């Protein structure tokens, strides 16, 4: 019981976005290039974990709409609508760096 109470306290302390399975599931495939939970493995990609939500969402829209040049992200971002972008941005923003 003590363990359950402790777990409940920890869960309550985390931002809701960190628990959101929809955002988590949308973000998980990005890990093949950006690292698990957006924690980058190399210096060649941007570490997404803990970046401001608004920044991630704005950049994704800029890639999608052709306003920010890219080698690959302009093609990937076109696969995501506004709601999906907001959801995965909130999830990455809530991850520990």
């Amino acid at each position, binding site marked *: 019981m003590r363990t359950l109470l402790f777990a409940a306290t920890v869960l309550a302390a985390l931002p809701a976005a960190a628990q959101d399975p929809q955002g*988590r599931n949308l973000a*998980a495939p990005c*890990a*093949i290039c950006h690292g*698990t939970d957006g924690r980058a493995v190399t210096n*060649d990609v941007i570490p997404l974990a803990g970046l401001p939500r608004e920044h991630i969402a704005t950049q994704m829209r800029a890639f999608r709409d052709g306003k920010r040049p890219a*080698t690959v992200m302009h*093609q990937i971002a076109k*696969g*995501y609508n506004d709601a999906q972008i907001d959801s995965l941005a909130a999830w990455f923003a809530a991850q520990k760096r």
Partner: protein
Amino acid sequence: MKRRDFLKLAGAAAGAGSLAGLAGCASMAPSKARVVVIGGGFGGATAAKYIRLWDPSIDVVLIERESGFTSCPISNLVLAGYADMQDIRQGYDGLHRHGVQVVRDEALAIDAAKKTVRLASGGDISYERLIVSPGIDFNFGEVQGYEAAMNAGRVLHAWKAGAQTTALRQQLEQMRDGGIYVLSIPLAPYRCPPGPYERASLVAAYFKQAKPRAKVLVLDANPDVTSKAGLFKAAWKDLYPGILEYRGNAKAVGIDAATMTVKLEVEDVKGDVLNVVPPHRAGDIAQKAGLITTNNRWCDVDWRTMESKAAPGVHVLGDATLSAPAMPKSASMANNHAKIAAAAIVEILNGRAPAPVQILNTCYSFVSQKEAIRVSSVHAWDDKDRTLKAVTGSGGVSSARSDAEGAYAWSWARTIWADSLA
């Protein structure tokens, strides 16, 4: 874990020397359920890790017959001498750190009704959910004389990274200047659509430096280059004129080891090094377990969960699946199939309904030591057609080959290795 099951598992694991690792779980709190994963490649390793990440109260046991992981991506650089075998090898320590119990053993049979897996070391292991990520095996019989020639060391596929990668590198190093390296590609679908063309490019790059009179002859059963065709052909024209020759509609049907000849449907071709990649199917355990549903080769799945269409409670990942439309058999896809399965299994074992997961693919291919090209796609569940489909307007290929894409290719490799195994 039920005591009876634990004893069975401990007994099975004793032969593999993993008893200590398994015994550790006996002292922990009772788990919610056990998931067994067969195969520690990109699909199986990722699934094992992500189930533990997303619900640590689920026990995960990974059955893998090799002592470590060897990556097919980057293995073509090893063939050309631009990377070492140690660059593409990883251990399973990272999975241990996530609480995955890695058992070195081989799955011989699956009883989907009893929910048990028979292990080569003896004994059964039970599961609530099973993940089968067996990769590919070959239909050697479709190329007459193949197995005898392979066993005599006269032909290699090197289409599973490992001992054959090392052997092919040695054959290329020992080949005379002026010799011919023959690469034969099976009809699609096969593992890694751009892989053969990357291999042809990199062997040509090696010859250009080390054996300038040697030739690469590509015999493709397909009518044309199946992936990144424009980018590959531009690289071949610019970088390897007079070295690399490509022939489409050139299907290998036999090997004559004595004369080092590849028999095509209409002619015979001699070579000094024969690298014939036979047609594939889902890996052996999928075949033995009755998971193959289509063309005697592939395993159809529900793309919302990766659950087999042939066996309830069994999820099939990676190259073994009957690919969804426009979906390649790639490491990126296997890794992301694993996340679909992990998300679905965590929901199911917690009494909730799984939701579809949108995934993406990115594959890099080197065309020289430093330059690479890329293809990407995004795949979303389509409720009408009941499958994953490429999202209209998304995806595409590199604008041109470049050193920058080469750096991204290495970054992708290091990152997906870590995402799958660390």
